[in-house]
């Protein structure tokens, strides 16, 4: 049984190489990245051999705990597509124990397992400071591998099992965003710590606590042995082994439960009336807009791309703030960034529809109605956001006269971004997360083509708003009426680009419609 499942896992891994060249490139980059990271960590662990015991102990314990936590949490939040899901084997008469053993063993095949094994072996080198520490580290290496792999197995299956309904999948997308938002202040406080003077003692404090938890115990045990505290080391090693035992029991119980539990049934919610369709007139353009609005509200994939917009300026501002850029200059950053992302938000909208776009094609919806309808929600949401943000930022900048310039850049970027996105999504759609999948799932065929299209969309949008940028820049240097010039050029130029983009994108959509549908069917 174990041999069979190992062979199956190898075969799955082998088959992942039999795809299109770009997918292959992406896969190989992923493999090299994973192994490269493991090698970097391993060399750091080699280096720690030369460090004093207390420093090595803190560093290894904290890092190790984060690694185990990652194996526990990543599958829960990102919900991986699991080919070795125990339910796949429900129709075969395999005893639960053998299936659980086999599936756990099969997870040894793969990049994460190899990476963890490398790191586990490397920490033996860190503790090559006597017989006892080495003994603890050698046992630890095996425990580390088992802990990480079983953690991932348990939480992957838990995610697949609990998140099998659409609604709970949608909820995890939002959960992921909330976690990101919660982490942001954490990062900020990390950055404000005076690492040069107090960093080490903080690390030691954290390590001391974490070393007694199941996450860090296995990493801390050899350190205690090296420091001569054999009793503490033994106790920690026991905690770690007990954790593996607990994970194993959980895994076995989960396999047994999943084999006899069919897919969970979602309780369907009712929505009265026609919603946005009621609010907007009954023309094709307005109907497409109402449909887009509805998806922005109901589809977790759109939530993620919208919620990310206020986070990006924060992430961009942080390093600048730490680098000592004055706050009033930083106030110039958020509006252009938000506008750029809002305009960019629809650049791959057709791929989000997936094959449902056939309805537009079979109904011969005019291309410009399709294009404009998809841009309307971004306009309706974006214009007020940019106006409010511009007022706020111009007062933060300390000069109310800067409002026209900031507003002009924001509106110019939004309008021209929507115009250019209207062309891009008809001409160059690239694979996106499928409807109903976790918004963080990677599309089957993501590759460098998508990265290229994303960069082109950003750069061209910025270039199209170039004149407005120039006027706004002149205002910053010379003041005067240049700000008003920026506002006028932003609105006028942006409107022209939006109209042109909608018309051109519409013609492309009509001409390419069978090719677009064929693209979505491949996705």
């Amino acid at each position, binding site marked *: 049984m174990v041999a069979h499942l190992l062979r199956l896992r190898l075969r799955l891994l082998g088959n992942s190489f039999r795809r299109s060249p770009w997918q292959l490139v992406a896969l190989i980059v992923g493999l090299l990245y994973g192994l490269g990271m493991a090698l970097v960590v391993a060399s750091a662990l080699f280096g720690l051999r030369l460090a004093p015991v207390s420093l090595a102990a803190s560093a290894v314990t904290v890092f190790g705990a984060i690694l185990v936590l990652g194996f526990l949490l990543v599958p829960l939040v990102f919900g991986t597509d699991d080919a070795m899901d125990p339910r796949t084997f429900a129709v075969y008469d395999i005893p639960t124990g053998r299936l659980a053993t086999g599936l756990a063993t099969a997870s040894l095949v793969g990049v994460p397992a190899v990476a963890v094994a490398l790191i586990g072996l490397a920490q033996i080198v860190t503790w090559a400071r006597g017989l006892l520490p080495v003994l603890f580290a050698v046992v630890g290496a095996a425990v580390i591998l088992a802990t990480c792999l079983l953690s991932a197995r348990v939480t992957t299956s838990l995610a697949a099992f609990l998140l099998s309904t659409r609604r709970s999948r949608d909820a995890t997308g939002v959960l992921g965003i909330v976690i990101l938002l919660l982490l942001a202040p954490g990062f900020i406080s990390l950055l404000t710590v005076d690492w040069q003077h107090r960093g080490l003692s903080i690390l030691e404090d954290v390590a001391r606590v974490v070393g007694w938890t199941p996450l860090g115990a296995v990493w801390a045990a050899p350190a205690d042995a090296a420091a001569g505290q054999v009793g503490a080391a033994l106790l920690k090693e026991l905690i770690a082994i007990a954790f593996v035992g607990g994970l194993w029991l959980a895994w076995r119980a989960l396999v047994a439960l999943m084999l006899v539990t069919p897919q969970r049934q979602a309780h369907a919610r009712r*929505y*009265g009336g026609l*919603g946005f369709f009621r609010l907007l007139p009954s023309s094709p353009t307005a109907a497409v807009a*109402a449909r887009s609005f509805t998806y922005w509200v109901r589809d977790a994939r759109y939530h993620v791309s919208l919620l990310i917009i206020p986070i990006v300026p924060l992430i961009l501002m942080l390093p600048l703030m730490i680098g000592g850029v004055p706050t009033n200059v930083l106030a110039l950053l958020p509006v252009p960034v938000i506008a750029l992302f809002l305009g960019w938000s629809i650049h791959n909208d057709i791929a989000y529809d997936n094959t449902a776009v056939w*309805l537009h094609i*079979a109904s011969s919806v005019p291309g410009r109605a399709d294009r404009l309808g998809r841009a309307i929600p971004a306009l309706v949401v974006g214009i007020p956001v940019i106006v409010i943000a511009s007022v706020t930022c111009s007062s933060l900048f300390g000069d109310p006269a800067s409002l026209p310039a900031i507003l002009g850049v924001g509106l110019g970027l939004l309008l021209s971004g929507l115009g250019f996105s209207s062309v891009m999504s008809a001409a160059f759609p690239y694979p996106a997360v499928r*409807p*109903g999948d976790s918004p963080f799932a990677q599309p089957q065929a993501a590759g460098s083509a998508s990265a290229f299209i994303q960069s082109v969309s950003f750069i061209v949008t910025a270039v199209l708003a170039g004149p407005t940028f120039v006027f706004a820049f002149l205002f910053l240097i010379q003041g005067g009426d240049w700000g008003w010039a920026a506002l006028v050029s932003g609105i006028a130029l942006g409107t022209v680009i939006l109209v042109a983009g909608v018309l051109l994108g519409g013609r492309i959509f009509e001409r390419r419609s069978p090719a677009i549908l064929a693209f979505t069917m491949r996705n």
Partner: protein
Amino acid sequence: MAVATTPVEQPAPEPVAEPAVPREIVLAIRGLRKRFDSTIAVAGIDLDVYAGSFFGVVGPNGAGKTTTLSMITGLLRPDAGSVTVHGADVWGDPVTAKRNMGVLPDRLRLFDRLTGAQLLYYSGVLRGLDRDTVVARTADLANAFGFEDALDRLVTDYSAGMTKKVALAAALIHSPRLLVLDEPFESVDPVSAANVTAILKRYVAAGGTVVLSSHSMDLIQRICDYVAVVVDGAVLDTGTMAKVRGDKTLEERFVELAGGRTDTEGMEWLHTFSA
């Protein structure tokens, strides 16, 4: 006409002879071809579908049924050939041709984050109907197909059969002249299927035209008056149901045309059950 020899005795559909005065040809297909890389999916199909007929396309899996129907509905561009719907070329004058067509594709998604009511409304408005018409027709269709209770639920939460029914209702909402339905009865329960069949028959009696594909021979024989047998991307036989099936059932005739049955001997082990 000879009596059919199926265990399920079926009376043949009424019109047996070709119409004396040719009726309007609502769908004309000429020399339709499509290849995907090295496989030829459709190898030159010619078909005429008369207005007011119930036209069945039968064929084994992978025969090119879906490919053909996709090219008819303007969802897939043919390599060669033409499709004319009520005088309008699907690839030359798509707007007119598509206005006359209602489409139910197989295995394509719907905008399933909409409720049933919203999806029907959306389909109707995209077809140019006004609000009041769509709302009235939505109620009628929901009543006829029996999904009034599901109108306020998201389509993504529907069962497969329910999804099919809503999609079929969406194809009907603009009262097209021609309905092109790919596997309309797949995963639809027998009661609903009978219901849908009755609706389609009334539609045909009123002068509408239905082209549908299915691999259920029994169903096609029961409801269609014209049939085309498609195998390996080519039409092996077409005409009235009576002409195509002769004195056999459609299923027997189909198996004969499609190349006979595979020898099913040599699986004796299947009759000795495991302990």
